[in-house]
């Protein structure tokens, strides 16, 4: 294509894109001014008026919408961070079990992955909440004494109380994401040449130590990108908290919109929050990636 042709093509496309967006915005303006709901964020300072079952800092219904949204943010962050940790542990365990010598472990881990990945996450969350935690009795189950107690009210872990909504969401998210992480880990381990296994075995290293000190460090560069995208998925999936009535950011925004009818503003707030969250996760993983590469180059 000639340069001038390219210029006219771009110009034409840009103009039609602008016209299209213009029509959408015009429709929006017509529809919004009909109901007298033009864009504004003043309502954020009004009292929210709804209670939140869980809040990290002090909150009461007479506090402003913006404070309620902050509490939602913190609740989201709490479940995402705990979920990332639990899913990573579960995923690494299940992923490495796939290359274990023990046939039973291999079968167990491949069964777990095959089952969990073919069932919708929402259904799994319903399962953990309604058929799991809400079916437990009031008197706590304590398999490990006072270390961990599980009951209808949730989990007591080392004196820390976790509500049943939070626990069900955490378990559901970690089990679901753990299965995907297991596949990522397995892929990473398979990318390490078989010779490395034979090498550490012939050196007489035990299986577990060899896996940890020889295979996994080499698999890490192949694992990290997949891990990042699974972390992003977990963060996005945490919005399904609404299914178990856990007051995360999305649920608070949802309540806010039903009360104020401010759908566009609510969407913008959610968009900004998630763009920030994504930057946080990708930034953190980028840092980790650089550290891994650096430590491998220096050794």
């Amino acid at each position, binding site marked *: *294509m000639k340069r001038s042709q*390219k210029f006219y*093509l*771009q110009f034409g*496309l*840009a103009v039609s*894109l602008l016209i299209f967006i213009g029509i*959408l915005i015009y*429709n*929006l303006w*017509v*529809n*919004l001014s*009909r109901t007298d709901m033009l864009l504004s964020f003043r309502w954020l300072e009004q009292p929210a008026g709804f209670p939140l079952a869980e809040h990290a800092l002090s909150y009461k219904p007479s506090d402003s919408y913006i404070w309620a949204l902050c509490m939602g943010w913190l609740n989201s962050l709490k479940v995402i961070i705990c979920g990332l940790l639990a899913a990573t542990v579960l995923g690494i365990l299940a992923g490495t079990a796939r290359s274990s*010598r*023990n*046939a*039973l*472990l291999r079968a*167990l881990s491949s069964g777990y992955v095959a*089952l969990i990945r*073919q*069932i*919708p*996450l*929402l*259904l799994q969350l*319903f*399962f953990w909440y*309604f*058929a799991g935690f809400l*079916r437990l009795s009031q008197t706590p189950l304590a398999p490990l004494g006072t270390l961990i107690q599980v009951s209808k009210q949730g989990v007591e872990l080392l004196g820390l109380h976790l509500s049943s909504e939070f626990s069900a969401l955490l378990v559901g998210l970690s089990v679901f994401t753990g299965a995907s992480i297991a596949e990522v880990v397995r892929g990473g381990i398979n990318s390490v040449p078989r010779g490395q296994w034979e090498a550490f075995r012939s050196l007489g290293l035990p299986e577990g130590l060899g896996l940890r000190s020889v295979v996994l460090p080499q698999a890490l560069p192949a694992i990290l990108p997949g891990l990042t995208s699974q972390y992003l998925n977990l963060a*996005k*999936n*945490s*919005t*399904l908290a*609404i*299914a178990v009535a856990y007051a995360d950011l*999305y649920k608070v925004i*949802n309540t806010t*919109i039903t009360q104020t009818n401010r*759908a*566009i503003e*609510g*969407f913008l707030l*959610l*968009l900004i929050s*998630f*763009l920030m969250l*994504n930057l946080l996760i990708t930034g953190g993983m980028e840092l980790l990636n650089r550290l891994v590469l650096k430590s491998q180059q220096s050794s």
Partner: protein
Amino acid sequence: MQPGPSAFKRLKRQLLANPLDGLITVVVLALLGWATISTLHWLVFGADWRVVSQNLPLYAFGSYPADQRWRPFLWIALLITLTLLTLLGPSRGWIRKALPLVWIAMVPCGVVLLAGGFGLLPIPSHAWGGLTLTLLLTACSGVLALPLGILLALGRQTSLAIIQRSCAVYIDVMRAVPLIAVLFFGQLLIPLFLPMHLELNRVLRAVLAFALFLAAYIAEDVRGGLQAIPRTQREAAAVLGLSPQQTLWLVVLPQAMRTALPALTNQAVGLLQNTSLMAILGLVELLGISLSLLANPDFIGRYLEVYIWLAGVYWLVCTAMALLARHLEHQLSPQTSAN
């Protein structure tokens, strides 16, 4: 396999290589045994499957009018026949050649059968439900999202800066937002962006939101496929005198789509699972109809039975989709098609 040690010795090597391995085996066996026994106990003494067996038509068709149920039934039966024919049917001949077209025709066919028209009694979309609605949402959104996704991927690759930027922004923003939010705001916001007199029903709005969301993910998968094509392919096409359009349609896209197919399969299975999110937003698809059944006082507390049944249905449909996709991959691989 080589004639190796006896089965017993092999078992011993695989399960009891050293004391730790033995311990793991014993613990896993104990856990599995405990799980099996408690499941069996529940199945025999606790479970009551009437919540499933009495409501099979509801799970399949939702509250579709009883005298018109043959229409969704026919559609699902056609889909099952086609699946079996594709997987087990003859590997060559006119049937095989007609299959792709028939598959594509199933989407408008399903819409017409459900919605009515062409001599069929029109049925409003709020009466659609159950597995039929789940499949229809999946099929329609997928068919809309695929071309949109390919366009976005091509847009992100062009040298036209404005197009490239806008496609990139769209893809990145869409991929940053949770699906439930896209669906929720799709229900709320799509009417706001349309002219006043134009109204879309809930199902259509859901399909549109799914398609807009999924297109961004498909675009990234297709872009992966496009990047995997060696430069030499384009150069070879240019040497043969193909125009840029011909190169795109005959050389680049077919290869890119073949590379992207496994990823696209995952997207399709994910889409089917994600249609369950519409249960929260008031559509009575497979999960939605089950939630309303669980709210029925006759079946109060029968969560486990319903969830296990649903898990089974989703698992079956997802597995069938994955098998179909693997079949397609096999058909399209250069070794098979060269024969």
